[in-house]
Each structure stands twice: as structure tokens, then as C-alpha cells.
């Protein structure tokens, strides 16, 4: 007997009890659909979290000097001097011979200041840094230009402003480029020409990354009180996302030797974006697995539904089984016939479940845009069919094992 014949026989059997078959298929549909949809939700939320972290710049390492507040956990009382990060260190790190995996190093000096333009004034974060800070932090210039190395060299009084600052100082639609803004911190005051506007950027920390004015770090001397040749923070950008850890090691080594200490004793706080990313990836994948497991239980329930219905079917059709055996059906043919019915139920349930899961994952669910992965779809489908085989086997085997006389005599 060919597969096709098994199929037509099985379809005839299933269509004899349409409602019952449909309900069993529905059970499988819900199981498969739930697996696909919930895994998609878990996956979607994981992608959302990761893209938020990515917005920080995944190739970057933030090194913060905590020396002023205390030593790092590894430092002991024997070390009396706080370590520093100097302009010379930055130069060393920027040298490709000494640090081959580092693309750029940006010193960062931030302060909260008052900015004003004409009658308007607002509080804004001024970040004094080098041109490489912008790409390292995933800032893009929407209009005008970014600060350049010549601006750093000449300590040019220029600023690139963020969207929030723009809307706080300028009337809607105004072109800020070429205009001058005043920045005051305590007694210090300076005038900056706006040379560019940043595109809006997403926030991960709750601090608005768009309420910002970026100026060359050399300009900060005399304006920002924190300025010494001792940067509180630098951002190191690796050449490649796979080089992040190597870049971190190179930067640490350079700083350790410059401060005549060991890496472990540096009182610096290092945030490696990539390790943040992998931490979050592992937590969200745990979440996804958990969701998938819950959904898999409904798949199991669907399978039990198939087994239940197949047991009823075999009992109902005991006489038919007897007739088939009396005219010479071998055991395998009976087994195949009922197994095909069970697998068809799970196959239909699986296909419909895939459709429902895919359609469902086009809608936002509890604020998450689900992202269905091909593997979860294929896996859910394959598992569904396997469930059909597994739960269909016992009833089919029961049918195949019936003795012809007993089956024929069954009322």
C-alpha cells in the first residue's frame, strides 16, 4: 500500500467525524501556534533589549577613573597615589603600533551647564571630547558638520547640539547652524558657534542623550572646572566588535604601565559594552526558553488529545479493522492506516499553528514586537508531527494487534 493510499484512507476516516477531527486539530494548532508566538515574543523582547544596548555602541569600552572616590576592589592601602589618564596616554592608545585593536580613543569630560540663545536658556550637558566620540557613541550628525581634529587642535569655539537642546533653545523650524549660543558654568562663560545638529538617539539609561552639546575637549580648558590633564573618563572604540576584549586589554596595559602599576590594581571602572550585551542576551534567552517551555506543554496536551481521539476511533472502527484483517490486511497496513490518521491530525494542526503563529507575531503583544525565527517555526512543526507519531502509535498498535475474530465480533 502506498503512502498516497494511506493518506486517502486516513482522510476518509477523518472526514467521517469532521467536528471531532477539527477539535483535535485545534488542540494541536493552539500548541504549535503558542510555541511559535511565545518564542517570537521572547525573541522580540530580546532583540529590543539588545538593540537598545547596541545604541550605546557595541564596540566601545568606557573607562572611568574612580581614583578620586577610592580604589578599585583589588587595590590596597599600599598604593598611595590615584592613577590618572592623561593626554599622553590617549596618544599612546591611538597609536596603531602600540594598540593594534583600538580604532579611536575619546576623552570625555561632561558637565551640566546653562546654555542660552537670545532670550531662551536651558540646562544642558556639555560633553567635551574628541571627534571620535560621536561614532563611538553612535551619534550621527543630521545637519551641518561634526567637530573635527582641526577644531581640537585650534581649540575652536564650536558645538554640535542635540535635538532636545535644539528644541529648547530655538523656535520650531529655525536653522541653528551658524548661530552662537552662550554656555555658563559658575563664573565661567563662553560663546560657541553651532556647526552641526545631531540626529535623535534612543536612551537606555533614562538620561536624555539628546540634551547635549558636544565641544572639542581642548576648548573645555578654562570653561569647565573639572578640566585638568586628568580625564575622568575615556571611551575606547575597538576596530571590530570581535576585537573588543583585545582592545580592552591593550588600553588597560597602557594605562597600567603609564601609572606604574598592574592592571588589577588600576582604580578604573571598565564597562565593556559587549559583555553587557552578552549578559542581557543570556537573560533574555532564559526568558525565551521559559516561554517556549510553557507553550510546549500545550503542544503536549494537543498530543494527548490526538491519542484520546485515536483510541476512540480505533474502538469505533473495531469491526472495520476486523473486516480488513479478514480480507488479508497485514499488521503493518492497519498500523500504517491509523498512524497516518494521527499524523495527519498533527500535520494539519502543525500547519494551521504555523500560520496562526506567524500571523499572530505580526501584532504587538504586551508592548513587544514578536520576531518569529525560522528555527522556532520549523522546530514547532517538526515536534508537532513527531507528537502525532508518538501519541498515534499506541492506538494504531492497539488496532493492529486486534485478533480478527474478536474484532469482527465486536458490537
Amino acid at each position, binding site marked *: 500500500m502506498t503512502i498516497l493510499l494511506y493518506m486517502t484512507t486516513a482522510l476518509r476516516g477523518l472526514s467521517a467525524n469532521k467536528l471531532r477531527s477539527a477539535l483535535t486539530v485545534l488542540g494541536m494548532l493552539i500548541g504549535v501556534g503558542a510555541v511559535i508566538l511565545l518564542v517570537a515574543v521572547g525573541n522580540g523582547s530580546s532583540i529590543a533589549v539588545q538593540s537598545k544596548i547596541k545604541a550605546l555602541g557595541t564596540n566601545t569600552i568606557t573607562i572611568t577613573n574612580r581614583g578620586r572616590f577610592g580604589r578599585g576592589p583589588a587595590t590596597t592601602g599600599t598604593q598611595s597615589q590615584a592613577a590618572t589618564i592623561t593626554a599622553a596616554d590617549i596618544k599612546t592608545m591611538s597609536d596603531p603600533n602600540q594598540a593594534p585593536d583600538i580604532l579611536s580613543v575619546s576623552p570625555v569630560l561632561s558637565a551640566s551647564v546653562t546654555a542660552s540663545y537670545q532670550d531662551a536658556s536651558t540646562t544642558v550637558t556639555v560633553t567635551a571630547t574628541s571627534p571620535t566620540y560621536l561614532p563611538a557613541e553612535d551619534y550621527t550628525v543630521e545637519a551641518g558638520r561634526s567637530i573635527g581634529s582641526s577644531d581640537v587642535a585650534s581649540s575652536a569655539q564650536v558645538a554640535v547640539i542635540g535635538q532636545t537642546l535644539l528644541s529648547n533653545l530655538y523656535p520650531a523650524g529655525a536653522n541653528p547652524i551658524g548661530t552662537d549660543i552662550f554656555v555658563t558654568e559658575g563664573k565661567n562663560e563662553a560663546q560657541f558657534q553651532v556647526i552641526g545638529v545631531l540626529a535623535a538617539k534612543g536612551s537606555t539609561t533614562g538620561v536624555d542623550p539628546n540634551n547635549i552639546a558636544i565641544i572639542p575637549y581642548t576648548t573645555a580648558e578654562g570653561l569647565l572646572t573639572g578640566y585638568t590633564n586628568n580625564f575622568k573618563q575615556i571611551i575606547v572604540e575597538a576596530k571590530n566588535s570581535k576585537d573588543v576584549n583585545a582592545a580592552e586589554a591593550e588600553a588597560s596595559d597602557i594605562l597600567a604601565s603609564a601609572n606604574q602599576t598592574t592592571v588589577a590594581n588600576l582604580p578604573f571602572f571598565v564597562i565593556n559594552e559587549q559583555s553587557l550585551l552578552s549578559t542581557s542576551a543570556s537573560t533574555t534567552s532564559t526568558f525565551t526558553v521559559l516561554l517556549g517551555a510553557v507553550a510546549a506543554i500545550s503542544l503536549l496536551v494537543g498530543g494527548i488529545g490526538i491519542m484520546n481521539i485515536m483510541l476512540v476511533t480505533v474502538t469505533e472502527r473495531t469491526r472495520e479493522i476486523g*473486516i480488513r484483517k479478514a480480507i488479508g490486511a497485514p*499488521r503493518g497496513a492497519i498500523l500504517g492506516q491509523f498512524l497516518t490518521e494521527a499524523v495527519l491530525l498533527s500535520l494539519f494542526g502543525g500547519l494551521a499553528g504555523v500560520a496562526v503563529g506567524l500571523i499572530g507575531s505580526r501584532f504587538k503583544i504586551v508592548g513587544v514586537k514578536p520576531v518569529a525565527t525560522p528555527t522556532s517555526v520549523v522546530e514547532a512543526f517538526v515536534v508537532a508531527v513527531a507528537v502525532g507519531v508518538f501519541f498515534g502509535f499506541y492506538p494504531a498498535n492497539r488496532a493492529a494487534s486486534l485478533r480478527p475474530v474478536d474484532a469482527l465480533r465486536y458490537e
Partner: protein
Amino acid sequence: MSPVPSGSPSSDRQLPPVIALRNITRTYKMGDSEVHALAGVSLVIERGEFVAIMGASGSGKSTMMNIIGCLDVPSSGRYWLDGVDVRGLDETRLARVRNRKIGFVFQSFNLIPRTSALANIELPMLYAGVHAKERRARALAALDLVGLSSRAGHMPSEMSGGQQQRVAVARALVTNPALILADEPTGNLDTHASDEVMNVFESLNRAGRTVVLITHEPDIAERTKRTVRLRDGLIISDENTTRGPRRAEMGAAR
């Protein structure tokens, strides 16, 4: 002792009898008590015979027929079908024997529901692995033989009892079995329909097929060539229907 009991005079001594039963018993356990449906039956049926089995209800006719048809196995005794001891056959071989050597017709027709007359007749050939084209051709020929060519596409529920039984007969004969067994084939039919079914059996027997049927009706038995009577699981008489008593020695032996 020869493994096959010697039978009645046969035209061809080389061929074993189609059916040879020796001391067949069949016991059903009902809790503590035992029911002896067959209490020791010996019977030889040669190729080309047309036999009626009669007896009161509960005398063991169906039990014997099920054993002959390899649907059931005896509690003791031996059974040679076409010279082959069925005791030595496994499940797969028994299925093949039922498929190739035996055509079974039941009192309650036993067609597969929601399956057309033609598909029902094709079924045994399906299990025999006959190709679709040949299957169709042979099924149509069998349907023609029972005079139901016009009902090929009908479902069992769309046919009269007589027609259903003739489809069942067509299904039984389509694999060219050596043996056609029928358990009260006319039990659910009126005289006219019985007549039609018996006509088919008669023509099959004329064509050389061995036919064994169970019946309660003397006029049906009269149309066969030999009548075997059972009572309480034993053969009480075995005679030639047209040519007077035969095999009296069997009854005497008991």
C-alpha cells in the same frame, strides 16, 4: 501416519485437500466454566466441493468457519489448508493466507462503510500489492460477474442488502482464492436476493472454486452438493446432498 488425513476419492491424487481438519477443538473460558464450542471435529473438503454446514444455533458452525478461515486458532487439533499446517504460520503469513487463499463472506455483509463498491472490491488486491490499473480492471470484472456493474460508485449505504452481499461476494472472489467461505450469506436476505447470491456461488463452484457456506435454510443447503451437520461442537452427519448418504463412517466413528 501421514501428516494429511486421507480424504474422499479425488480426481487428482497429487493435490492435497483444500481443507483438512483433525480433532479440532475450540474452548472458550468464561470465568470458571469452559464452553466447548468445538469438541473434536475432523473434516476433509476436496478441491471443487460445494458444502453446506448446518446445525442448531450455538452448535459451533461459526467457530469452525472462523478456524477454517484463519480468523481464529483452534485450542487443539490440527488444520491443513491446501496441505499447509497453519499452526506453523506466523501473523504475517496468516494475513497472506487470508488474502490469497480465502475469500470470506459474512451474514452482515461487512463492507467498509463510506467506501464505494468498487473500492471495497479493490481492497484485498490493495493488500496483495496489485497495481492500480490491474486492480481496477479485476474489480470491475468481479462486479460484472455478480451483475452489479452499474453500482460501482455506490456506497454500501446506497445499496440494498442483496446488492451489498453480492459486492461482498465479488470482494471475496476477486483475488481468485481456492476457497470461498460464507457464514450465513443469505441470513439477512429475502428469497429473491438469496437466489441471486446463490446463483453466484453456484456459478463459482461450476468454475471449479471450492465453496463452503453455513446456512439454516434447507432449500439453500439443497443447492449445494454436500451437507455437514453439527450439534454441540461435533459433526453428527455428513452426506451428499444429491446422491444420498456419504461418509457415514465419520459419524459412526464417534
